């Protein structure tokens, strides 16, 4: 099924995009803009995580923000304990706990004194929760629409709990006034190139990790499950196990993105687990192309970029939301594979034309055709 030439050119394109992203701070010396772009890159990473589960395994996770928010809270808890509280001094209680008359640090906060624990938890907590939820859903052969609704409901439950337990989580206000993320004495300034490099580096690594998964045998089986679940089951594969695996990996990437978001934004808020953010992720991925990791990432960058540029004015932003909704509906209707799919189609058309015409038509970048396409014709 694998076409080596395609894979090589795909890797080349992915690498080129990653290098371009990593080079941005060399030409841009504006702390505010760097911070903004780092934020967009985090969203790009979140889009990659959803593309992995939705585009490659057919699991539409409407609660992708749940794992993102949990990662963000884990990082915020660790960074919060690094600050010196005004009221209780060093090693004291975080300020919001003092305000809520909590006298002792809750047990689940204590290990977060170690930053390493916080980082590990930021990935492992989302993975564990996703594995549990995945086990619950996929072992029961709940698929499609119902699985989507369950992910959405689960996310809202977690969000409600975080808002409700104000004494331990800061409630609506979230966790604010954080220390800087520090590794071996080197502090990552949210408004400096160091944080940007951190985010861009993590993005590049996850992008290639996700690409590797989709190219592996597991990735092929996942795509087969997406297209014809029953047939894969008849072949003797444990469909639920594969789904739980990709669901958990996706959650881990989203958790990592959440941690980076806390580093860049310098706070964590219950809106990070909200329905609006989850909807946005789905929109980015749908617009960029759910079956292309790079397409999904670029979709996130483009949509959030335009949104950021328009956010200067309230009216613009509201009109933009309207336009975004329309664009989303149109993409769902006419471009189920998003912009990446459209590029593929154009590229495929040029490939079929006689060699003479190809020389003139190098302008549109050809998105490589994924190996999943061949399988898809079956359904």
């Amino acid at each position, binding site marked *: 099924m694998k076409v080596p030439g395609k894979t090589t050119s795909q890797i080349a394109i992915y690498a080129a995009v990653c290098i371009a992203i990593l080079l941005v701070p060399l030409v841009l010396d504006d702390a505010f803009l760097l911070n903004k772009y780092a934020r967009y890159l985090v969203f790009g990473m979140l889009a990659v995580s959803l593309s992995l589960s939705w585009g490659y395994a057919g699991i539409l996770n409407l609660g992708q923000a749940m794992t993102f928010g949990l990662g963000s809270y884990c990082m915020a808890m660790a960074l919060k304990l690094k600050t010196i509280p005004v009221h209780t001094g060093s090693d004291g209680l975080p300020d919001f706990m003092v305000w809520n008359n909590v006298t002792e640090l809750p047990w689940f906060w204590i290990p977060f004194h170690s930053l390493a624990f916080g980082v590990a938890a930021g990935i492992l907590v989302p993975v564990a929760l996703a594995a549990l939820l995945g086990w619950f*859903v996929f072992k029961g052969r709940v698929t499609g629409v119902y699985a989507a*609704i369950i992910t959405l409901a689960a996310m809202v439950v977690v969000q*409600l709990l975080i808002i409700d337990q104000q004494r331990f989580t800061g409630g609506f206000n979230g966790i604010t006034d954080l220390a800087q993320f520090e590794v071996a004495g080197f502090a990552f300034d949210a408004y400096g190139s160091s944080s940007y490099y951190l985010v861009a580096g993590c993005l590049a690594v996850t992008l290639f990790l996700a690409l590797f998964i989709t190219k592996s045998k597991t990735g092929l089986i996942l795509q087969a499950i997406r297209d014809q679940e029953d047939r894969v089951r008849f072949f003797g594969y444990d469909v639920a196990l594969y789904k739980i695996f990709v669901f958990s990996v996706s959650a881990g990437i989203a958790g990592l993105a959440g941690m980076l978001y806390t580093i860049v934004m310098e706070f964590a808020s219950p809106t990070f687990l909200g329905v609006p953010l989850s909807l946005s992720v789905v929109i980015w991925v749908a617009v960029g192309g759910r079956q292309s990791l790079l397409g999904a990432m670029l979709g996130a960058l483009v949509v959030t970029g335009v949104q950021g540029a328009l956010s200067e004015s309230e009216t613009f932003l509201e009109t933009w939301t309207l336009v975004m909704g*329309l664009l989303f509906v149109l993409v*769902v209707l006419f471009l*189920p594979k998003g912009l990446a799919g459209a590029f593929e189609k154009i590229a495929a058309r040029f490939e079929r034309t006689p060699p003479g015409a190809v020389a003139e038509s190098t302008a549109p970048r050809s998105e490589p055709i994924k190996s999943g396409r061949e399988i898809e014709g079956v359904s």
Partner: protein
Amino acid sequence: MEIFVSQIMTGLSIASILMLVALGLAIIYGVTGVINLAHGEFVMLGAYAAWFLQTQFGLSLLVSLVPIFILVALFGWLIEALVIRHLYERPLDTILATWGIGVMAQQAVRLIAGGELRYVEMPPALATSVTIFGASESAYRLFILFLALALFALTWCIYRYTHFGLKLRAIAQNRSIASSFGINSGRIYRFTFAYGAGIAGLAGALVSPLKSVSPEMGTTYVVDAFMVVVLGGVQSLMGTLASSGILGELTGYIAFYSNDTIAKALVLLAIVVLIRFRPQGLFAGRVRT
């Protein structure tokens, strides 16, 4: 006794609104298999239509119910013709498309009517209270209860005893076989969608005097109504009636004794568990495949 009756009446009042919202959702879902996430926005549009007709033309709420039903039904008709029609083969994408439509409707209303809260006046004739078994109950809430039951009965009769209802049930059971017997399923789907939207619009108009009207008001309803449909079971109108009764009383009870946030979280958890173990609902015998 008084407290008991008033507690039951509060539950019934919540149940009647729930049923109005859920009825449309259940019909659309039962017949076409589309989970309409824009349903809350149909409710919202109905409420805004009531506000608009009242402030611009001075129409009383009771008079404007019929035009509101027609307006929102037309809107549903359009949505079906423009978008949903193309997606029946891709059920996951209908969720996305209806979600997108919901966002658009919310945003359009926010841009046109403004994001602030709006208020609709209660019909003066019904702004009194009635005493039942010693408990005082708002006449308007009773009116909603009766109207909801009447609408349910009407829908039931259409579903059960008319030619249209027969076709509807045939399609719900098996679309392709029904089509091969000469039933125009596309047209039936569109009618169903419009009818469901119209009822949602009515629900919105009816709750508008009780709650403030805002662009986001629909989202809360769609979650609760979805719970009703899941609990009641696809294709089971009686299930919808029963489950909205159960949920209404339960919500009233929980809100009376406990914390609102936890109650919401519990309801959602119940949805998750219910979908996992009984996706066909508590009251449905057969399953749509």
